[in-house]
């Protein structure tokens, strides 16, 4: 049995992005997607602070403090890039112009509800950024996450217990164990990682997992 590494998860997801897609990548594992663009395809990356055509981090000492991504790290602008203000940037998001957003998750429910911005702990400082706009507006929402939390709790659940980011918004989930589609009937298994048994994944999923369609 071979659970996927973070890089392998990102690589698997990248295979499902079509050529020419406009893509917004969340912070963390989703950023790894840029390393695995399949041959012959081109993706254009959007960062919500105001850049389309985002490129990789600059060489040491060659960056600009005012050319950053949503995670506030320095990036580059590729040939063909464009800068714009925040309302235009979120019109791209909220107006349904972006094809795909890849996000991390605290929990995903079998109806597609997503919780990824707050654990709801009293006293924690709430911070949401653009997550709620992205899930409400982008055409497809893919979640890229470990199947379970560090404590072994399922992240894929019957109903989210954490505060929601959006209702019924997730289309697909890519984990170290499997690829799962969110359907009207619930979690539909699409693919298992090499040698991972169905029951192993079901045991680690907090809601029924429909077997792969023959």
């Amino acid at each position, binding site marked *: 049995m071979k659970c996927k590494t973070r890089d392998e998860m990102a690589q698997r997801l990248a295979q499902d992005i079509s050529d020419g897609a406009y893509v917004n990548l969340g912070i963390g594992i989703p950023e790894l997607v840029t390393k695995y663009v399949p041959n012959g395809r081109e993706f254009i990356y959007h960062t919500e602070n105001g850049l389309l055509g985002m490129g990789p981090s600059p060489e040491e000492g060659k960056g600009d*403090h005012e050319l950053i991504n949503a995670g506030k790290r320095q990036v580059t602008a590729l040939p063909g890039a464009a800068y714009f203000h*925040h309302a235009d940037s979120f019109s791209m998001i909220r107006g349904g112009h972006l094809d795909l957003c890849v996000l991390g998750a605290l929990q995903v429910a079998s109806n597609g509800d997503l919780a990824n911005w707050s654990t709801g702990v009293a006293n924690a400082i709430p911070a949401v950024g653009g997550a709620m706009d992205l899930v*409400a507006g982008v055409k497809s929402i893919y979640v890229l996450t470990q199947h379970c939390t560090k404590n072994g709790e399922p992240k894929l659940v019957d109903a989210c217990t954490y505060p929601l980011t959006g209702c019924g918004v997730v289309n697909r989930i890519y984990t170290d164990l499997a690829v799962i589609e969110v359907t009207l009937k619930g979690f539909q298994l699409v693919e298992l990682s090499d040698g991972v048994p169905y029951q192993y994944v079901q045991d680690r999923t907090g809601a029924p997992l429909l077997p792969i369609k023959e």
Partner: protein
Amino acid sequence: MIDKRVSSVAEAVADVFDGATVMIGGFGEAGSPIELIHALIDQGATNLTVVNNNTGSGEVGLAALIKAKRVANMICSYPRTSNSTVFPELYHNKEINLELVPQGTLAERIRAGGSGIPAFYTPTAVGTPLGEGKELRLFKGRNYVLEHGLTADFALIKGQTADQHGNIVYNKTARNFAPIMAMAGKVTISQAAQVVDLGELDPETIITPGIFVQRVVEVRNPALESTLVAAGETYP
């Protein structure tokens, strides 16, 4: 002759009053008008409502304004940043109020405010804690929440190059909230690394037309928040 240039950052912010709503441009350090913020700290206005995406870092710029207890209310989308300790402390001590707004809703509220639109419907935050208590309306089978436009007494922004009419161009992703805050501020004050003569900016490339800007002040080598924070500097 229209000439919106003022000679110092102190003069630029001299009339900011206690209880004013102040929009401050910037996403993290990119586009943060640090010199204008420091001038506002020196000026002394207090009990402010500040609109910014974040809450600053270290103890310079916006974080220094918050640390000086000039900010009663913060309207922002992401008040957590690495190096941000000032806001969390005051928030936990209940010395500052937070209105948390999704980033796109924040941007749209500012644009709407600056465009004379009192409110609009958006699907963002429907069914979440940030949509609770807001008017819901169904359009074509989908739920939307009502969000209100935001305006401000003052907007402090940072441009790259400006002219005496207040036309502005920006540097890369430092543009972020500045063009829409310029629209939403009754008095918009821009610092710029360079203020050029009329005609030097190509009208085809101007991002913020001067009608949205009331004052321009040249700040030739603006400080960078991360540099100041790394050097352990604090303000004042």
